[in-house]
């Protein structure tokens, strides 16, 4: 069960805080980057990330759940059509809060909260190779080669020929491993 937020609400009452945070999240999804006080930025960050997680799932139920918070249908459409698919390969951490200089007038701590524009390094590498993680790929390839070896050994009548084929396959495996390692290094 989630524990309630400690300390006073933003704006004075729980309903006012909900409205403030919903409006801030709406503005964030509409513009991609907003400047607000540091306290509000830090409080709206978990709400915005939950909404983006719902947007990455993208079905009708999640869209209705998001509409409970964001009442602007244009912004919800943008969230599900653009922002959600862009973040589909990022496991959380969709927003970034950067502190800026205090505000003139009341010297309040200010911050910029923005949607992260960059792709993650692993997702970029996977897109460039057109494959998944090298570890997972090697594990699946090794298991398939082992199964083929056992099949050859069972089918082969002469032990010598089977041993030769096994040595050939092992050499092929070593070369393929070297290739993958070189790819990883590059």
């Amino acid at each position, binding site marked *: 069960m989630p524990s309630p937020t400690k300390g006073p609400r933003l704006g004075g009452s729980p309903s006012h805080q909900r409205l403030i945070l919903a409006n801030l999240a709406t503005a964030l999804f509409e513009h991609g980057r907003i*400047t607000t006080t540091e306290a509000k930025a830090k409080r709206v960050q978990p709400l915005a990330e939950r909404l983006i997680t719902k947007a990455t799932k993208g079905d009708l139920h999640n869209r209705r759940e998001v509409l409970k918070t964001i009442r602007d249908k244009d912004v919800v459409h943008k969230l599900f059509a653009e922002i959600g698919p862009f973040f589909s390969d990022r496991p959380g951490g969709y927003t970034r809060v*950067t*502190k*800026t*200089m205090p505000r003139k007038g009341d010297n309040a701590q200010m911050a*910029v909260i*923005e949607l992260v524009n960059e792709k993650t390094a692993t997702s970029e590498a996977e897109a460039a190779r057109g494959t998944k993680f090298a570890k997972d790929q090697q594990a699946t390839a090794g298991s398939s080669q082992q199964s083929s070896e056992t099949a050859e050994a069972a089918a082969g009548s002469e032990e010598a020929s089977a041993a030769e084929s096994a040595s050939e396959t092992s050499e092929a495996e070593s070369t393929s491993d070297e290739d993958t390692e070189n790819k990883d290094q590059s």
Partner: protein
Amino acid sequence: MAVPKHKVSRSNTRKRRSQWKASAPTLRACPNRACREMKPPHVACPSCGQYKGRQVSSPA
């Protein structure tokens, strides 16, 4: 309503106010090589608008 019994002397007033001190803000040079302005740490640079190599706000 409670009221002061004695007038606070000029000496006591000035001794009290002598403790009001301002401290210098902590400043570090901006890591952006094109900027190098002094700025508070952990804050986007107010002159070039960058933080950790990212453009956060428009430069002043």
